């Protein structure tokens, strides 16, 4: 008798739980991921890279035994604050539009005497690429909370925007994919991951405004160059190369589209 009662209690509880679950399930996956990110944001290990980057910025290194404090990121020599939200931009000394990583590469070569081509050819996460990761985290963090406003005054900058736009919609490869296949419409996702629509401003701290970021799954800090590498890998494209014009042009396109979005970089990602 008491046994039956207990069973009924279990059944009632079970039914209750069955009805309660769909209510919990109404929270979208995106909410769940955001909650997860918020929980982790307080102890974002990207801070470790920021600290390392700041030390590397000031440290005398390389064959020339020089620091990067004379490196001009667009706001004058040695000014890191506010530089990130205005990159990529045109630099008169190199005669090229450069993003943060290609610009740092130029500084590593001209100021410190490193071989930029050798660093660009180094696989991610090894050797001097580790230096770049840290520097990227430091420089991006100096612009945290500021809003993107890429300069478009120079003809080269406008040209790169157009090149970036065409590359974004360029379909090729074994899957006949383009960036726009995934990032050209609202409401698209890969498995559980919502994809930002990068043909317009996706909002504060989304898309272009969220990178560089610490990836929890790999325990690494990824800059925009490495992020784009992964996009190309997923499309089964050959990788255009570290700091290549293709990646910079895409950076200009995404950056200009993100105008007014606040940067949260370096952020934290799954």
């Amino acid at each position: 008798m008491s046994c039956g009662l207990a069973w009924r209690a279990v059944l009632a509880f079970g039914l209750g739980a069955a009805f309660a679950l769909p209510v919990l399930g109404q929270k979208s996956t995106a909410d769940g991921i955001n909650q997860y990110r918020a929980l982790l944001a307080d102890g974002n290990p990207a801070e470790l890279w920021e600290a390392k980057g700041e030390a590397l910025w000031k440290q005398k290194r390389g064959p020339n035994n020089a620091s990067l404090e004379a490196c001009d990121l667009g706001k004058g020599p040695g000014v890191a604050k506010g530089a990130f939200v205005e990159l990529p931009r045109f630099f008169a000394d190199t005669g090229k539009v450069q993003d943060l990583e290609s610009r740092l590469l130029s500084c590593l070569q001209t100021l410190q005497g490193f071989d930029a081509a050798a660093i660009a050819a180094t696989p991610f996460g090894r050797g001097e690429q580790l230096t770049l990761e840290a520097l990227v985290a430091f420089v991006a963090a100096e612009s945290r909370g500021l809003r993107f406003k890429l300069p478009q005054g120079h003809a080269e900058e406008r040209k790169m925007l157009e090149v970036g736009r065409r590359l974004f919609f360029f379909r090729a490869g074994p899957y006949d994919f383009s960036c726009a296949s995934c990032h050209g419409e609202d409401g698209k996702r890969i498995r559980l991951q919502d994809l930002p629509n990068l043909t317009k401003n996706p909002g504060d701290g989304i898309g272009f405004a969220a990178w560089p970021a610490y990836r929890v799954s790999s325990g690494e800090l990824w800059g925009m160059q490495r992020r784009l590498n992964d996009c190309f890998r997923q499309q089964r494209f050959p990788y255009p190369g570290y700091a290549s014009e293709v990646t910079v042009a895409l950076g200009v396109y995404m950056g200009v589209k993100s105008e007014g979005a606040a940067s949260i970089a370096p952020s934290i990602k799954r």
Partner: protein
Amino acid sequence: MSDPMRIRAQVQGSGAVVRVLMSHEMETGLRKDAAGATVPAWHITEVVAALNGKTVMTAQWGTAIAKNPFTQFTVKGAKSGDKISISWTDSRGDKRTDEVVVA
């Protein structure tokens, strides 16, 4: 040489909340590299927190702790201006100590 920790200590109520971010690989010893060879275990084994030089917490850590670990705890009775130091020892015998003043 190991990278510095990031430590924040803020007064909250009658104590201080301490947040620590450590830079460590935390290899479990179960992973294999590209060549198929086992990557040897290498992780933090002990964490010690001290308030003005007096140990207030010790923790034994193992392979279940994440890479670049984050830890948070409350130290009762800590006041603004007190010194909190965190030390870790890893399985290779490496040690690191960083200190912060409670804000």
